[in-house]
């Protein structure tokens, strides 16, 4: 432990935040990105829930990786993820009831989020627990920032508020400004995700320019 983070660990954490982002580069986890981004608060809670679950599931699977029978490894991964999701759902229902109502089925659907199975199969099965933990954190946070960015635009223009607080003054509504109903529809989240992917590629894809 000469350095707190070795190059490999650092790459496992930093990669998914930008260059190898699960949503905008690998195009995983899109369905939940459409569903929970109407409000910023819900998007952040969803992002945090996914981050916790993917990080913990990565650690568990990584710790067990040498014992897991090859033929049922996907089932083992699924059981670990499902158990963690059930735990998070129960904790939310006990301590953050209104959030759990708002997220309703989407917490349960974290099980089907492609990011989780993707990271477990591609990373945790062949790397140590610490690297896997950082990889899970990185991917979760990479997912979270994209959700937060989409939710920011959708809540601002769809409801005129951020985190539930009104930010567009009443004066604007009195003079004919209206909230954009299109922003409330899932289709708009897909369009916004497309815009983020476009901007991200334009900024990062230097090789494509040659």
């Amino acid at each position, binding site marked *: 432990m000469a350095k707190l983070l070795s190059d490999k660990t650092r790459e496992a954490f930093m990669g998914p935040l930008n260059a190898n982002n699960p949503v905008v580069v690998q195009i995983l986890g899109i369905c939940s990105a459409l569903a929970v981004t*109407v409000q910023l608060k819900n998007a952040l809670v969803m992002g945090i829930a996914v981050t916790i679950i993917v990080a913990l599931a990565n650690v568990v699977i990584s710790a067990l990786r040498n*014992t897991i*029978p090859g033929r049922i490894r996907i089932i*083992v991964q699924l059981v670990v993820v499902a158990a963690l999701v059930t735990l998070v759902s129960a904790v939310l229902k006990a301590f953050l*009831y209104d959030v759990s109502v708002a997220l309703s089925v989407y917490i349960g659907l974290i099980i089907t989020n492609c990011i989780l199975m993707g990271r477990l199969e591609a990373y945790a099965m062949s790397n140590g627990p610490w690297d896997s933990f950082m990889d899970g954190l990185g991917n979760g946070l990479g997912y979270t920032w994209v959700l937060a960015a989409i939710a920011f635009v959708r809540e601002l223009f*769809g409801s005129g508020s951020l985190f539930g607080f009104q930010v567009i003054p009443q004066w604007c509504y009195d003079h004919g400004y209206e909230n954009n*109903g299109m922003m409330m529809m899932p289709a708009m989240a897909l369009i916004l995700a497309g815009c983020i992917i476009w901007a991200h590629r334009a900024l990062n894809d230097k090789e494509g320019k040659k």
Partner: protein
Amino acid sequence: MKLNTNSNVYTIVYASVMVVIVALLLAVVSAGLKARQDANVLLDTHKQILASLNERDLDDATATRLYDEQITEVTCEKCGLSWFEANLEGEKKYVLPVRGAGLWGPIWGYIALNDDKQTIFSVFFNHEGETPGLGGEIKNYAVFQQQFEGKKLLTDGLVMTIEKAGNGGDVDCISGATITSKGVETMLHTCVAAYVEAGWFNAAEEEGVVEEFIADVLANLLPDAEENVEQVNE
């Protein structure tokens, strides 16, 4: 010693042990958090009932206090119905629970009536998964629920209607959410019908009071006809 992780025995034992561990873990957590979750669900229901009495957006402590002070649940076991009676600074209100189906999932609500059991004091509707910004707006007080205030729930025995704006309904549909709005209408019709059938709207008060009332009337009409009262009670 190196385990053969590909053998059948190993795979079956591994799967069994894993399932037992996970099941135990989930059972313990579920049992541990159950009380807290149930309390949350109950508090949420109380908040929704208070919202139908126009006491909206309360924090947990205020909601608990107001509910305890103002609301009592009344169950009529004979007719299988229950409702809530509220006392708002001396004014008596009745709250009827309703539930039905929207476009994507269940919708439900609470209708608060003034003590004439006819005029709507206010309402609260909620939903599980209606489209945000469209059907989901039935949850919105300013957009939808406010329209119900002061309207008659029943006119000549017919429950109020929800129609497109300008079509002459008692309440306007939410534009773009006709199915959810009509779901609210159907919900009102089916749920209120049960109370109509049970004679809830005709009873001036609870049954005991009605009998007392009839006894009083008869006693006044026929001062010495005690037997008649007995017969009415039967």
